[in-house]
């Protein structure tokens, strides 16, 4: 029994369980503390998804990259470029919304492909390649337009504003208005992305190869896996997801301007790490990253509900959590390693 528990403990899912527990603890804590301020409303929970839909998509993509042993810090800039491109195409060029969205997704894929090719075939450090990508995309955003562009395209605004009311859990506010809980299409997109990625990572050959490559590239190569191809696919996938995150982000902000989504990639990395993904690769899960994002969202909600605390505390709490989780990870890894050594000795 104890042995079983210990095995559980040292397995990778342990990290995710801690993250989920932490989220639940924080959330229930919030419901109790801010009882008189309606923290317990269904909509407060849904807002976590509505406001962070873009980040959830980006964090899911980032998780895949981190599992493969790489990193992609161009995500924030790609999101900004996507928003600007969408706004520019629809407002200045009169291109219809659907075409514009398809074009930006293709741009994302191409962007990812170039980065992936440089990383896997020319063997350049992913950090440097995506750093260049980050500067390039941010620069391109400014080249497209220095001024901010407001999206007024009716089809796009309809997509952004179409509320999907849930049939249950409505509440009456103090003005006597009944408000049904609602979500936007962006929430559905981000949840679909999570579900698809979860199954791809767990049950497909591609997904398992990513874990193998990230865990130990040499062994993966010796096992006969096509490491280069896997890596390039990872970056193409992430390029696509970054552009999709940009689209989802744009649904929330309905406009493009140069300074948008600065530091977005760092938030995505933080969410992935809190969600139990190892920066060294080979370990991680998109569901964990979802909870990483939700934890960040909950802290932000805490601060606005509290009302007087500086919003910069969000960053401090995230920093503390990051430290905590990284220490936890390294201890767990040590445990695992020692176990392996013992087996080898026997």
């Amino acid at each position, binding site marked *: 029994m104890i042995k079983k528990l*210990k095995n559980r403990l040292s397995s990778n899912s342990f990290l995710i369980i801690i993250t989920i527990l932490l989220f639940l603890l924080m959330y229930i804590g919030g419901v109790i503390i801010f009882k008189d301020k309606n923290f317990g409303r269904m909509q407060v929970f849904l807002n976590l998804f509505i406001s962070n839909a873009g980040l959830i998509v980006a964090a899911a993509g980032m998780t895949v990259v981190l599992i493969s042993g790489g990193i992609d810090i161009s995500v924030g800039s790609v999101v900004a470029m996507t928003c600007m491109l969408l706004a520019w195409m629809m407002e200045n060029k009169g291109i219809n919304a659907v075409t514009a969205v398809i074009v930006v997704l293709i741009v994302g894929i191409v962007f990812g492909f170039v980065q992936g090719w440089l990383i896997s075939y020319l063997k350049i450090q992913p950090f440097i390649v995506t750093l260049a990508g980050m500067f390039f995309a941010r620069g391109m955003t400014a080249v497209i337009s220095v001024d901010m562009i407001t999206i*007024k395209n009716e089809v796009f605004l309809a997509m952004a504003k179409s509320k999907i009311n849930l049939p249950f859990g409505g509440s009456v506010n103090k003005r006597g208005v009944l408000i049904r809980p609602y979500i936007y299409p962006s929430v559905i997109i981000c949840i679909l992305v999570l579900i698809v990625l979860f199954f791809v990572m767990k049950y497909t050959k591609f997904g398992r190869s990513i874990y193998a490559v990230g865990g130990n590239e040499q062994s993966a190569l010796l096992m006969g896996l096509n490491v280069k191809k896997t890596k390039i696919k990872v970056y193409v996938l992430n390029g696509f997801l970054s552009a999709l995150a940009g689209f989802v982000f744009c649904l929330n902000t309905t406009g493009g301007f140069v300074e948008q989504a600065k530091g977005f990639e760092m938030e995505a990395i933080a969410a992935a790490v809190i969600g139990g993904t190892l920066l060294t690769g080979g370990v991680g899960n998109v569901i964990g990253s979802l909870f990483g994002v939700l934890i960040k969202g909950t802290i932000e909600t805490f601060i606005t509900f509290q009302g007087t605390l500086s*919003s910069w505390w969000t960053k401090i709490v995230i920093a503390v959590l990051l430290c905590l989780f990284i220490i936890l990870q390294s201890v767990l890894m040590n445990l695992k390693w020692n176990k392996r050594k013992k087996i080898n000795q026997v």
Partner: protein
Amino acid sequence: MKRMKQLLVLLLILALGLTFIGCGKKDTNTQTSGKDASSKDEGDLIVVGFSQVGAESDWRTANTKSFQSTFTEEAGYKLLFDDAQQKQENQIKAIRNFIQQDVDYIVIAPVVETGWETVLGEAKEAGIPVIIVDRMINVSDDSLFTCWVGSNFKQEGYDAADWLAEYLEKQGRSEETINIVTLQGTIGSSAQIGRTEGFAEKMKEHPNWVMLDRQTGEFTQSKGQEVMESFLKSYDDIDVVIAENDNMAFGAIDAIKAAGKVPGKDIIIVSFDAVKAAFEAMIAGDMNVSVECNPLHGPRVAEIIQKLEKGEQVEKLQYVEEGVYPAETAAELINTREY
């Protein structure tokens, strides 16, 4: 044995983590309960959620302080303040949280003009009045916000021109040709557009005023200095510099001094914003006038909220009062300046 030790370490970290969370919670708990105790008997406090851009400048900080000192519990308000750290997505999140908390009013100092349709639609649906301060927003439907409070930049342009006309008259130069250059703000910003237009309109009344050149100094001191240097090289007879904010005026002062002229005497310097440093420059005699851009929006917003509470209508666009501060008054006023 070693593994036992590591397990122990692990448990320790976990315990630490949990106490951290626990502590955090207890902290907020005592804080809120403390607040509750004091405010429970005054359950009819007006709750105002205020989403501020950030703390990027002295002007902004003064703006924030103005709200914090106006919306106090003694005055019958409870202010929920959120610093958006220059990010619009943070503002959108904060507004959604304000809506869920059933605040009575939402006040936004928007980071950018765009992207407010969705979230303001949610506020409207919940029946919460929204007051925009400082920058304007760009929405297709005007009913999404109740009113806007801010500076009348065009009026500031008029004021600057009027002051200049008066000053020149006093010096007996109202008939002679006056050569003017302008250091413009960031092109496209509402402050730049309003101030440039306002001054240009008034210029038509003075046929002896000649605008030699207009260039942007992007509201920064270094760029202002650079542009002024190039102006001084291309024109040898500049009488007046209009700097569309104080920082560019400081840069222009440095450039004029470097060129061997005396700012404030050889070249008249007209500036905008009237920050504290501008008063110091005026006392030193380097600057002639600064037209105020008032950040103290708090009292005005409170006035509007009181009107709305009584069910009165309010005007859609409301300007704050702004003064003109010439160098003569600088010494006595500097201590009353809050920013």
